[in-house]
């Protein structure tokens, strides 16, 4: 892996990013735009699942467009992230904060895809199953939203920490 990172650092793209201040800074700005789109989508989806934004409407109505926003944001921040990673591949790969950021990113995305969306979808017709099912469903929704908010907030904080303490 070390030889791959060394090769990555020696590529033309990595050298251009490393040596061109405005390119590096501009990529970092676009990376942040993508990240704002992702965290905004995650925030809206989780606050809604928590029952804060649009109570009384099926959560999936918000989760679906928010997921598209999260995906678009990840596409933007992922594409720019690769270019930002290339010139500092070796140092970043052994950086604890960067490793934490990546671990939180993977966990947050997997949690959103496999837990959040399922919970949001499952609550659609729950009112037909009786009051106890509704109460259980609300508890599940709130717990899912809190875990989601913690994961995305942790990701944002680790991203900030990496920028500042790198």
């Amino acid at each position, binding site marked *: 892996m070390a030889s791959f990172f060394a090769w990555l650092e020696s590529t033309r793209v990595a050298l251009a990013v490393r040596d061109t201040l405005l390119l590096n800074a501009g990529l970092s700005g676009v990376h942040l735009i993508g990240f704002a789109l992702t965290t905004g989508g995650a*925030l809206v989806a989780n606050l809604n699942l928590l029952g804060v934004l649009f109570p009384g409407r099926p959560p999936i109505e918000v989760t679906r467009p928010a997921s598209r926003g999260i995906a678009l944001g990840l596409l933007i921040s992922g594409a720019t992230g690769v270019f930002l990673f290339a010139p500092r591949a070796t140092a970043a790969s052994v950086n604890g904060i960067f490793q934490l950021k990546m671990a939180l990113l993977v966990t947050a995305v997997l949690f959103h895809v496999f837990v959040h969306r399922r919970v949001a979808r499952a609550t659609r017709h729950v009112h037909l199953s009786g009051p106890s099912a509704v109460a259980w469903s609300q508890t599940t929704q709130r717990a899912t939203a809190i875990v989601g908010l913690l994961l995305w907030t942790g990701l944002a904080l680790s991203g900030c920490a990496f920028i500042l303490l790198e």
Partner: protein
Amino acid sequence: MSIHPFLEWLEATPVGVMIKESAWGFPITVAVHIMGIMLSVGTLVWFDLRLLGVSMTGYRASLMYKRLAPWMVTGFAVMFVTGLMLVTAYATAAYSNLYFRIKVSAMVVAAINAFVYHRYTERRIALWDESAAPPKGARVAGLLSICVWATVIVAGRIMSYTMF
């Protein structure tokens, strides 16, 4: 009259000194500033997309604004306070930085855009509140908002690379 004595005075204030000289003052303030941007712009973009008729079209525009506004306002308040603190600490360098000027100009455009939307376009919201395709004025406001806030973010990042 030169503005530089004022900028130097700002840097010498307790807030300016604290951010500049303490080990954690700068990184913590910047981190909170970025979190404020995430919260404000991250939620604002959903209202802008609704104005554009691109997303969340099943929800009334006024309801979207009402529900998202507290989060946007909180984010903007955090962003402005921490932004002012950072400018206080590096007032002279910021003042002469091109990207700082671009960032502030974009924020002024964003404020004018918001004022025009609330003062004029929103007045007749009852006519298009539930419409999936809001009128031209609303769509322009949404698009302009996305563009200027993207400019604020990019200029802000470039500023941090070119200022120190």
